[in-house]
Every structure is written in structure tokens, then in C-alpha cells.
């Protein structure tokens, strides 16, 4: 009997940490009481079977509730109602704050120190980098498992995002190997992988932001850092200069992540998240124009630097601000839930997601020779427009019915602003991406519109 009780108490440890902290000892008591009674009644086998068979489903549903809509909903309607921002809390301790920044240092070692210093200096080709990739992947995975069992820690955002990026990189590698051996339809698969990872990234960021807006900001830093690291052509720039520029970016990311948790103030965190690409990206764009030496870029000047810098900066800031806007929009839907608004905001978000798919495909089509994507592109555009417009119209009606008995239209204006800014996200991606590094008045105009969007979104996401 005692052994069985011990065994089941081990099984109970599989539940999420918060759940265990709340019910763990009580569950063990109830289980033991049931065990004794079943033993007396001679129904021990049936009792144990029922406990064992129902355990997995109970575990899954508890995890789903803990990680998904249950607590997410609680957060979305808590405090000031726009998702918790952590503003009322005191800052984290140094240990947790440094843990939040630590993955930036690890990835810096992997992406900058090893290739630019160790391998170049020592001609070390013995797979040190591969070993480090495996080690860091293991560490990130271990952190995920630790958080699953011990409950989500405030510092976990950057770890989870780097794990996600690593997983995507591994998947990409695997896919590349597979398509190399089969050589079938590489373009289609590559495009789908590209679209899938971008949309999944957007979804993960949105879900994290739903849980906690501060974590959302913390999680937005890794993708931005990686984008700046891989998107610029620095092949002809001296290795030391490249390494310095990249190191500066990682250092900023580390400092920003640490201070986000130290201060735990939403505005400070938003500013820190925006500072990383703004200050960290400029030297990289500068080096691409000026750093390659005479001959490579005949007329290096600051205008060219900004042509490189601004589109990426706007896209990076959209990574910070987009999920925050979506969560505020979600709040409006929840506020009007009694009038059915919750369903309508989902229609709008669905429409915007279709718009994003359209934008990505449009980017692929306009930058490559993948004409077979034209039809899906048109379909996604049509569905996106219909869902967005239908959803926003219904949501307006729901909010109007729910919120404005005294004729106050401020909530409706706020809703309209959120909708326009959110709707502009796919447009922004669609417009900016194909024109990255382009020239001419049209492109300048698009970039300035992008900057105006950033300022507008920054104002609207305030609490």
C-alpha cells in the first residue's frame, strides 16, 4: 500500500509546478483515502486502474489549462485589463535578471566568438562549433523541460525563443539534407518552411505576450538579434570589425534583458526592447557600406547606410510592437465578450494572419521565381480582407452596445486605432520586404510610413 502511494505521489509530480504547489499534498491525501477504502472493499485493482488510465488525460488537460487559454485569459483581463505588464511588481533579483540575459551571451559565443576568434585564429576545424551547437541546444532544451516542470519563470522568455530559433535552424538543416538527396521541389518546401517558421514565430510571440506583456518584450529580442546577424552581407568586411559590431548587438541584448527584469516596468522594458535594434543594428548597416574598403562600395555615404538600416529597423520594431498591439486588441474583444465581441476579434486576428501569409508569399514571389504561389497568395488576400472587415464591423457593434451607454466614443476610437495599426502590419511587411535596400522616392516614403507606424503603435500600446 505504501509503495503504491509513493509511486502515485511520484506521478503527481508530473503536474505543473503551480498546480502541485496548490493541490499536491491534498491530492496525495485524497488518493490515500481512496486507496484505503478500495482495499477494504476489495476493489483495489479497479481503483488503481482508474487512477492510472485517467492520469494522462488529466495531465494533458491541466497543462493545456495552465499554459493556454485558462491562465492566459486570467492575465488578459487582470490588472489594467490589457494583459499584465508587471508594473505593480518589484524588480527581479540579480540572479533571475542575469539568467534572462544569459542566452544572449551563449549565442554570442556560438555565433561570434567561436567563428570569428577561435576558428579564424587557430584554424580549428575539429567541430568545436558543432559541439557547442549541441551543448547549447541541450541547455536550451533542458531549460524548457525545467520550466515545464517547475512552472514558467520570468527569465525564461529569451531561452524559449532561442530554443525555437535553434529548432527552426535544425529543421531547416534537416530539410536541406532531405531535399538535397531527393532534389524534388526544393523551392516549394523551402517557401513553406520559411512561411511556417515566420508564422509560428509570430504565434509564439503572441501567446507569450498574452501570458505577460513584459515576457513578450523579453522574447522579442532574440529574433531581432538573429535577423541583424544573418541579414547583412559582411563578407568583405574585416572579421574583427564584424565581430565587434555583432558583439555590440549581443551586449546590448544582454543588458536590455537584464534591466527589463531588474526594473520590471513596462515602459522601461518597451524602450529597452526598441533600443536593441536601433543602436545595435546601425553599426552593422554602417559596416556593410563603409567597412568593405575601397572598390567594393564605390560611393559610401550615410544615405546608403540609412537605406540599409531603416527597413530592417522598422521590421524589428514591428516584432516588438505587433504582439503588444494584438494583445490589446484581444482585451477589447474580451471586454465586449457578452455581446459576442470575443468571437469577432478572433475573426479580425484571423484576417490579419491571412494578411501576413499574403505578405510573406508576396515577398517570396516578388524576390524569386516561384510563380506557383500566385494563386494561394490571392486566396489568402481575399480571405484576409473579408475576415478582417467582417470581424471589425461586428466588433465595433459589440463594443458600441457594451461600452457606450453614455455616448463615450473613446473606446471606439481606441479600437479603430488598434485595428488600423494591426492591419497595417501585413501591409508593412508586404511593402518593406520587397523594397529592402531599394532606392528612389517610393521606397523612402514607405520607410517613413514605417517609422510613423512605429511611433503610432508605440503610443497606442501604452497603458
Amino acid at each position, binding site marked *: 500500500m505504501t509503495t503504491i502511494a509513493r509511486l502515485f505521489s511520484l506521478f503527481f509530480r508530473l503536474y505543473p509546478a503551480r498546480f502541485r504547489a496548490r493541490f499536491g499534498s*491534498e491530492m496525495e491525501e485524497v488518493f490515500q483515502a481512496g486507496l484505503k477504502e478500495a482495499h477494504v472493499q476489495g476493489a483495489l485493482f479497479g481503483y488503481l486502474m482508474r487512477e492510472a488510465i485517467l492520469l494522462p488525460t488529466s495531465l494533458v488537460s491541466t497543462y493545456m489549462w495552465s499554459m493556454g487559454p485558462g491562465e492566459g485569459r486570467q492575465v488578459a483581463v487582470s490588472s489594467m485589463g490589457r494583459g499584465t505588464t508587471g508594473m505593480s511588481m518589484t524588480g527581479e533579483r540579480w540572479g533571475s535578471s542575469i539568467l534572462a540575459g544569459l542566452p544572449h551571451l551563449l549565442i554570442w559565443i556560438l555565433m561570434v566568438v567561436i567563428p570569428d576568434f577561435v576558428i579564424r585564429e587557430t584554424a580549428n576545424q575539429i567541430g568545436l562549433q558543432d559541439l557547442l551547437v549541441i551543448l547549447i541546444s541541450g541547455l536550451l532544451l533542458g531549460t524548457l523541460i525545467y520550466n515545464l516542470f517547475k512552472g514558467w519563470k520570468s527569465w525564461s522568455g529569451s531561452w524559449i525563443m532561442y530554443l525555437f530559433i535553434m529548432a527552426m535552424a535544425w529543421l531547416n538543416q534537416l530539410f536541406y539534407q532531405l531535399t538535397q538527396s531527393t532534389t524534388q521541389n526544393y523551392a516549394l518546401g523551402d517557401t513553406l518552411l520559411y512561411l511556417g517558421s515566420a508564422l509560428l514565430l509570430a504565434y509564439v510571440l503572441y501567446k507569450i505576450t498574452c501570458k505577460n506583456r513584459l515576457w513578450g518584450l523579453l522574447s522579442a529580442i532574440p529574433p531581432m538579434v538573429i535577423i541583424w546577424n544573418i541579414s547583412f552581407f559582411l563578407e568583405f568586411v574585416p572579421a574583427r570589425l564584424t565581430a565587434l559590431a555583432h558583439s555590440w548587438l549581443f551586449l546590448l541584448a544582454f543588458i536590455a534583458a537584464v534591466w527589463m527584469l531588474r526594473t520590471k516596468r513596462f515602459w522601461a522594458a518597451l524602450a529597452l526592447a526598441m533600443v536593441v535594434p536601433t543602436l545595435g543594428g546601425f553599426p552593422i548597416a554602417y559596416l556593410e557600406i563603409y567597412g568593405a574598403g575601397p572598390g567594393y562600395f564605390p560611393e559610401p555615404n550615410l544615405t546608403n547606410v540609412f537605406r540599409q538600416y531603416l527597413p530592417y529597423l522598422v521590421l524589428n520594431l514591428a516584432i516588438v510592437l505587433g504582439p503588444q498591439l494584438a494583445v490589446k486588441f484581444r482585451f477589447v474583444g474580451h471586454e465586449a465578450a457578452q455581446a459576442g465581441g470575443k468571437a469577432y476579434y478572433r475573426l479580425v486576428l484571423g484576417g490579419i494572419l491571412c494578411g501576413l501569409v499574403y505578405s510573406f508569399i508576396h515577398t517570396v514571389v516578388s524576390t524569386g521565381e516561384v510563380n506557383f504561389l500566385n494563386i494561394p497568395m490571392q486566396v489568402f488576400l481575399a480571405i484576409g480582407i473579408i475576415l478582417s472587415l467582417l470581424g471589425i464591423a461586428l466588433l465595433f457593434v459589440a463594443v458600441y452596445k457594451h461600452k457606450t451607454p453614455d455616448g463615450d466614443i473613446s473606446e471606439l476610437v481606441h479600437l479603430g486605432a488598434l485595428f488600423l495599426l494591426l492591419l497595417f502590419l501585413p501591409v508593412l511587411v508586404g511593402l518593406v520586404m520587397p523594397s529592402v535596400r531599394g532606392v528612389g522616392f517610393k521606397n523612402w516614403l514607405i520607410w517613413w510610413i514605417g517609422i510613423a507606424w512605429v511611433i503610432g503603435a508605440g503610443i497606442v500600446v501604452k497603458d
Partner: protein
Amino acid sequence: MKEKNTPYPMQEPTLYILLSLRGGEKHGYAILKEVAELSEGRIQLSTGTLYGALYRLLDQGLIEQVKVKDNGRGKKIYRLTRSGLEAFNVEVSRMKHVLREVNKQVHSTGEGQV
């Protein structure tokens, strides 16, 4: 905590847990026993299922947890909140309405009441 997004129709175990608490506050094991009794043995909750359901109900604000002293130890009991009672009544009304509609339909086809 106010009620948030109560799902209708409720799952049967959830409904029975609320029904059990409608009769008065109880601790976990008492709920487990009473659900089995009320459902005439049809619903036998496992420990995990019971606490998973209590977790969700607490989160939704339909029940609340109270600590009482029992032999010097802190013991947790659960009780229905006002939102929980409302949610329970809404669900029961919904079920009654469904039954009425079914009976009307059955009656019109001359098959006798359900």
C-alpha cells in the same frame, strides 16, 4: 474573482462537482464520494480529474477555497461562489430547455415523453 468564460454545455463531472457543492462546502474526498453517489456510480472521478476540475473552477471563479482548522492542521475545503451558483443555474435551465424541446418533438411524433 469574477466569472470568466464559463463553457456551456458544462462537462458532466464539472456539473456534478457544482451540484455536490451546492449542497454545502466540502473537502476534496467528500466531493469525490458525493459525485459518485449523485451519479449513481456512473461518474467515478480519479484524483487527477477531480483536482484538474477544481483547478479550472477556481480559476473561473465558480468555486472558492477556504482553509479550516482540523486537528490542528490547515485543511482546505471548497465552496460554491455566487458566480458558480449562477453558472450552475444557467446550465440546469439550458438542460431543462433541451429536455422540453425534445419532449415537444417526441410528443408531436406520438412516441411518449422522455
